[in-house]
């Protein structure tokens, strides 16, 4: 691979890296996508597949706006992917529900949304609080313990495994050079280009975009950037295929286009993706049955845990290096929700060679210094 030149090398072949690579290829750039092998710890294969807006951005209003932007761009993003690959990633946006199982949970929800939308600079969008009867009108199978929910019409979901596969098919069709088992061990900038030392030799590129999830923490400092991460574990289980009965994606439960029901919203410390804690599964199942009593005798066919990509404060990081011009870093928790932004907004910025401060300036990792100094 030595000496082979690319305009951009994207590091990380998950949803963020693949969406960015596709966007860069659409801008006419020669792109290399460097990935780990099949054994990589990959959030893109374990996620919950929500395109989610209503719980994003308390503490950083631009993150709410950024999520709204991506949700609104998702339809055309999905249509473009279908045009190029023939595959429908089943994006649906019927609006999402955050169900509450007690008055206290509902009050916490009301309070959260009030504080979220009171922030200066947040775009206006609809969220409403529904009581039990109002929820029952749109989700007839809720249990009697559901006291209400918050509803946001901008929430949706997608078939995320198909999205992952489709993005890789799309970058392949656009001539992106996909390099699996090319774990990046060191990066240097020399003579106006970047030299990426991998487990299978060197790759050279004019620019680099780091999209390696939690591993950005190690990669970013090699090019004068930083990506403070705080990985988090979550457990999910999935049921057999059943006829459609859930009509909206929800916090911790959604029925996929294929009929299976995904359940899970645990947040745990730890970074072992193979460990499954039965106590957590039991609590999750119990809450799911209280929300939807009909789930009680549905068979679970698979369970897994996955590592969430999470920055230290939970908000995305998009940054460009001052010491190593041409080096960019992209970190976020929501690789599904923000895929449309990465493909259609961030990739064109990287192609132009500079991030648009008006859009992504608030997501610079410089914010961490302010907090540490304060």
């Amino acid at each position: 691979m030595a000496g082979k030149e690319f305009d951009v090398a994207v590091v990380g072949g998950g949803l963020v890296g693949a969406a960015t690579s596709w966007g860069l290829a659409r801008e006419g750039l020669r792109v290399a996508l460097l990935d780990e092998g099949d054994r990589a710890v990959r959030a893109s294969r374990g996620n919950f597949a929500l395109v989610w807006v209503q719980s994003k951005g308390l503490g950083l209003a631009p993150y709410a706006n950024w999520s709204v932007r991506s949700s609104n761009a998702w339809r055309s993003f999905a249509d473009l992917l279908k045009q190029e690959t023939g595959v429908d990633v089943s994006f649906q946006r019927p609006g999402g529900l955050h169900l509450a199982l007690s008055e206290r949970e509902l009050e916490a929800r009301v309070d959260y949304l009030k504080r979220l939308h009171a922030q200066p600079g947040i775009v206006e969008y609809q969220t409403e609080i529904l009581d039990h009867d109002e929820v029952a009108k749109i989700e007839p199978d809720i249990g009697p313990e559901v006291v209400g929910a918050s509803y946001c019409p901008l929430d949706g979901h997608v078939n995320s495994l198909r999205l992952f596969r489709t993005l890789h098919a799309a970058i392949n069709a656009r001539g992106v050079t996909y390099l699996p088992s090319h774990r990046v061990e060191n990066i240097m900038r020399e003579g106006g280009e970047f030299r990426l030392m991998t487990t299978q030799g060197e790759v050279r590129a004019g620019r680099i975009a780091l999209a390696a999830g939690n591993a950005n923490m190690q990669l970013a400092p090699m090019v004068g950037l930083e990506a403070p991460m705080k990985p988090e574990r979550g457990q999910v289980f999935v049921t057999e295929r059943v006829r459609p009965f859930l009509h909206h994606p929800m916090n911790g439960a959604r029925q996929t286009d294929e009929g299976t029901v995904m359940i899970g919203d645990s947040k745990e410390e730890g970074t072992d993706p193979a460990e499954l804690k039965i106590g957590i599964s039991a609590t999750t199942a119990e809450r799911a049955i209280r929300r939807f009593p009909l789930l009680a005798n549905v068979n679970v066919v698979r369970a897994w845990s996955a590592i969430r990509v999470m920055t230290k404060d939970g908000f995305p990081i998009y940054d460009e290096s001052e010491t190593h011009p041409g080096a960019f870093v992209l970190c976020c928790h929501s690789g599904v929700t923000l895929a449309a932004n990465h493909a259609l907004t961030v990739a064109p910025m990287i192609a132009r060679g500079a991030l648009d401060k008006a859009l992504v300036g608030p997501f610079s990792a410089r914010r961490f210094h302010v907090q540490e100094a304060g």
Partner: protein
Amino acid sequence: MFKRLDDTGATLAFTVDGKPVRACAGDTVASALLAAGIGHCRTTPVSGAPRAPYCLMGACFDCLVTIDGVGNRQGCLVPVREGMKVETQEGKREVGR
């Protein structure tokens, strides 16, 4: 199509889609369906293709049926009981049954 090697044992009565069927004591639901000449016990959730009991040892899940109101039971793992109500399935299971 299938012929019993030994049909001298006690018989049980159960129903398939409401119709009376005889089984031998010790039959699983799957083997009783095959012995009764029932061509398929379900259609698949994805393509709607018909399926009949196949592996008879709990591995293939092709013999899924609704037994006494509970969907997606593996017929090969459930012995027939007197009066049991077996229903064949079309496509995806319905929650609540």
